[in-house]
């Protein structure tokens, strides 16, 4: 409805600039409050805790000031060169593989009319639903020395670079798909029609319209995947064998040696990719034009029997692989003793048998995931909208942008420790947050802020700022435009963000492991504890419960999206 008004009123406008809408005094106040709120949130839950931790890098273990001694010690460490080389090369390789696969996958989902799109969307999410232990177990059962398919590795060992790349591709795939699907799903059909009328072939249209259109999403995906791999220690820890990575160095320093100073040093080094990402983001975001102007005509893929079938085959292959890994983990949860006694059993699901907390940790996880999804989505989307749409305050926006990208580069373990140092400090008035569910929720929101923020930004960038300009000229208050135009238009992205928070909160371990209290222990930690105790099958079983829960929520989300889509996204179809 607003769309028509917008169309009609548009001719009244002569100058349209991004963020250049006139602002009422009341709105200015609101914008200021909002920006301040977001900046304060990020400062309190990202910047200050990290600063508290990084300050440790100039102290030794006994708390004596040592200047840059920790940094020189790090530079002289014999394993450093190799771990930097390993981290960079394996992360690059993973990034190339993941982004290529994810781009094709997202392209099939958005630009073809293949069958089973809803199913494939769900399949792409599988890795998100699973705690990182599941793929590790599955990869060992498949490619380990007793694995079913070890012949495929031709004598190479899974414990090392091969295992790391396989595990990381699995782990990062949904992140890339999520960003790229959002980027690809908004496009202006008029461009394609014009190009076709001018005689441009399919390839030319792809190169000149599609690729430039998703440039921002593509670059975000590359940086997200790269940074995720560089900072992840879960996969290399479990399946990397002796291959040293920078992130496993953090693990060694913090958990192995309890040397927080050195851990902080490696943590600082790990921030480098994020800072680069920020620079690139800043550079590119000035060039991204809105793809969807007020008079856009949504792109509708046409039927193409051969292409659609190829797309289906590709997605079936990728989705099948993802499902296959999950299936192997499911199998792991019902065998008696791998690989010597394969008798199926359900005994592994009797968690009280392995873990004192039994099923209560599962309930804790539900609470955590619910609040994370609710709070996280509201904060992230409002924050992204303010950064993209509020007028002026360039410096503050820059700061918020940087802080929003930062969490991606911070290994969860580093964040968890930083939270202890900051929130448990005797002088901190926020100390009451520590040791409750709230700190787990806040840590999880902060930990997964970046990808959600990028998704929201990608969705928002594709909406023309004219919407606000037009509604302003119609004297519609800005929050009305936000609630009645922006939010409905971005609803698919918003739901994606909510679900992203939910499933990540179900599986997150590395940050919360330092923060949970006896009565808030989440299921993901229980999984780790059980695996620790040698209960691989019990761990797999609890992990499967997490997967099932997330899958059910995901399915509900799909249903809800469909209903909402019909109501708010009808404009995308002709």
């Amino acid at each position, binding site marked *: 409805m607003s769309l028509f008004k917008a169309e009609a009123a548009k001719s009244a406008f002569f100058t349209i600039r991004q963020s250049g809408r006139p602002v009422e005094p009341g709105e200015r106040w609101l914008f200021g409050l909002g920006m301040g709120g977001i900046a304060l949130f990020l400062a309190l839950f990202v910047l200050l805790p990290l600063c508290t931790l990084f300050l440790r890098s100039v102290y030794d273990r006994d708390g004596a000031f040592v200047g840059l001694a920790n940094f020189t010690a790090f530079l002289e460490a014999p394993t450093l060169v190799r771990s930097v080389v390993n981290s960079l090369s394996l992360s690059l390789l993973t990034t190339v593989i993941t982004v290529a696969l994810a781009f094709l996958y997202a392209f099939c989902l958005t630009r073809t009319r293949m069958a089973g799109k809803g199913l494939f969307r769900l399949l792409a999410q599988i890795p998100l639903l699973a705690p990182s232990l599941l793929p590790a177990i599955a990869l060992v059962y498949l490619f380990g020395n007793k694995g079913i398919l070890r012949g495929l590795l031709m004598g190479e060992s899974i414990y090392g670079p091969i295992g790391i790349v396989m595990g990381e591709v699995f782990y990062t795939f949904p992140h890339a798909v999520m960003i790229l699907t959002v980027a690809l799903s908004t496009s202006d059909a008029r461009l394609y029609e014009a190009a076709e009328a001018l005689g441009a072939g399919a390839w030319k249209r792809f190169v000149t319209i599609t690729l430039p259109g998703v440039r921002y999403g593509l670059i975000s995906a590359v940086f997200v995947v790269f940074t995720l791999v560089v900072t992840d220690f879960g996969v290399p820890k479990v399946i990397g064998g*002796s291959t040293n990575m920078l992130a496993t160095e953090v693990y060694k320093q913090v958990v192995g040696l309890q040397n927080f100073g050195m851990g902080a040093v490696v943590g600082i080094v790990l921030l480098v990719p994020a800072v680069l990402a920020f620079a690139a983001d800043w550079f590119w975001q000035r060039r991204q034009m809105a793809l969807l102007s007020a008079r856009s005509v949504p792109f509708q893929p046409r039927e193409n029997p051969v292409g659609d079938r190829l797309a289906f085959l590709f997605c079936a292959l990728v989705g099948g692989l993802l499902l296959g890994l999950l299936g192997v983990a499911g199998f792991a949860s019902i065998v008696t003793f791998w690989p010597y006694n394969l008798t199926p059993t359900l005994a592994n699901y009797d968690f009280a048998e*392995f873990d004192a907390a039994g099923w209560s940790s599962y309930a804790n996880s539900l609470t955590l995931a*619910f609040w994370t999804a609710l709070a996280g989505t509201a904060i992230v989307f409002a924050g992204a909208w303010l950064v993209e749409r509020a007028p002026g305050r360039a410096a503050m926006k820059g700061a918020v942008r940087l802080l929003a990208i930062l969490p991606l580069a911070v290994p969860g373990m580093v964040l968890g420790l930083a939270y202890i140092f900051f929130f*448990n400090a005797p002088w901190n008035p926020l100390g009451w947050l520590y040791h409750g569910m709230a700190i787990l929720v806040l840590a999880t929101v902060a930990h997964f802020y970046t990808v959600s923020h990028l998704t929201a930004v990608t969705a928002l960038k594709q909406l023309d700022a004219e919407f606000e300009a037009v509604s302003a000229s119609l004297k519609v208050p800005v929050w009305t435009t936000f609630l009645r135009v922006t939010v409905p238009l971005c609803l698919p992205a918003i739901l994606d963000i909510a679900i992203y928070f939910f499933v990540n909160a179900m599986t997150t371990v590395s940050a919360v492991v330092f923060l949970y209290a006896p009565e808030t222990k989440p299921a993901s930690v229980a999984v780790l504890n059980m695996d620790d105790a040698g209960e691989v099958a019990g761990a797999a079983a609890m992990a499967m419960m997490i997967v099932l829960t997330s899958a059910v929520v995901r399915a509900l989300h799909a249903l809800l999206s469909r209903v909402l889509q019909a109501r708010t996204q009808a404009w995308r179809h002709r």
Partner: protein
Amino acid sequence: MIRRTTLLGTCALALLAAVTSATGAGAATRLTVYTALENEQLTPYKKAFEADNPGIEIEWVRDSTGVVTAKLLAEKDNPKADVVWGLAASSLMILDTQGMLMPYQPKGAEELKTGFRDAKTPPAWVGMDAWMAAICFNTVEAEKKKLPKPASWADLLKPEYKGQIVMPNPASSGTGFLAVSGWLQTMGADKGWSYMDKLNDNIALYTHSGSKPCKMAAAGEYPIGISIEYTGAQQKTKGAPIDVILASEGVGWEMEATAIVKGTQKAEAAKALADWAASRKANEQYVNFYQVTAHPGVTKETPNYPKNAEAAMNKTNDFVWAAANRDRILADWEKRYGAKSEPKS
């Protein structure tokens, strides 16, 4: 649309309320106990203690030794734990040097073996039981590969074991360090390092977790894992075709111990727990899982546990030396073997 969101929110809140109300609160004194005990020990230990001490309730925060120690150290300025029950003595020694423990002589602690408590009076920590470095040997895989059963550390250097052995990285895992410091103490520095040089040639890979090598051996991934005897016994009980071997030269060992955290608001309850943890009754619980306990009078056959564990433990096990030289040893170790790259198969 708005109405629908509200409805959704209400439903979710109702669900939450149902979920959270399941965990009720009692009037008892709640002790927050940090621990690295195995999962299966938590319930029996808690039940046994609470049965003897009505009015005190244990709330566990359990994780691996490294994580719990890191958490305790990070919380140093504002401790959240009341008691640490079941953490490596070497970790407690670190906490003690940071002034984080409240020395306390539990009732009856004088009955415990002398090596099993802090030398100071009153002791900062009191031992519970010992665990040690062991070799987990998969008999089924060994049969297939025609590998003889090793009986000593020296056996592991045999060329036929090349690429068949897994051990924990001592920088990531306390168990790994236990083995390394054990070799250095019994063989002396020169022989110890030259032993590890040769052993390194046979090692397929170094893991980050201490129990992982035994689990890998149990699953047949690699036939031999240098790990913890406890994990070995546990895996064997679960049906793994492994033998748990305590090397004939003697093995490095470590103990689990109890300590009260300085600054606890619940000192009386904490002392009650410390008393109980040192009692004969508590040791009768420990012996269900570990053969060597702090109490000299408590013994029992533990299923699938290697025989003569007490005899196999290194006589000269200097925790203070190990703690003082840890950084140096690990730096040396990293220099020599840390860069070992891809596993050789």
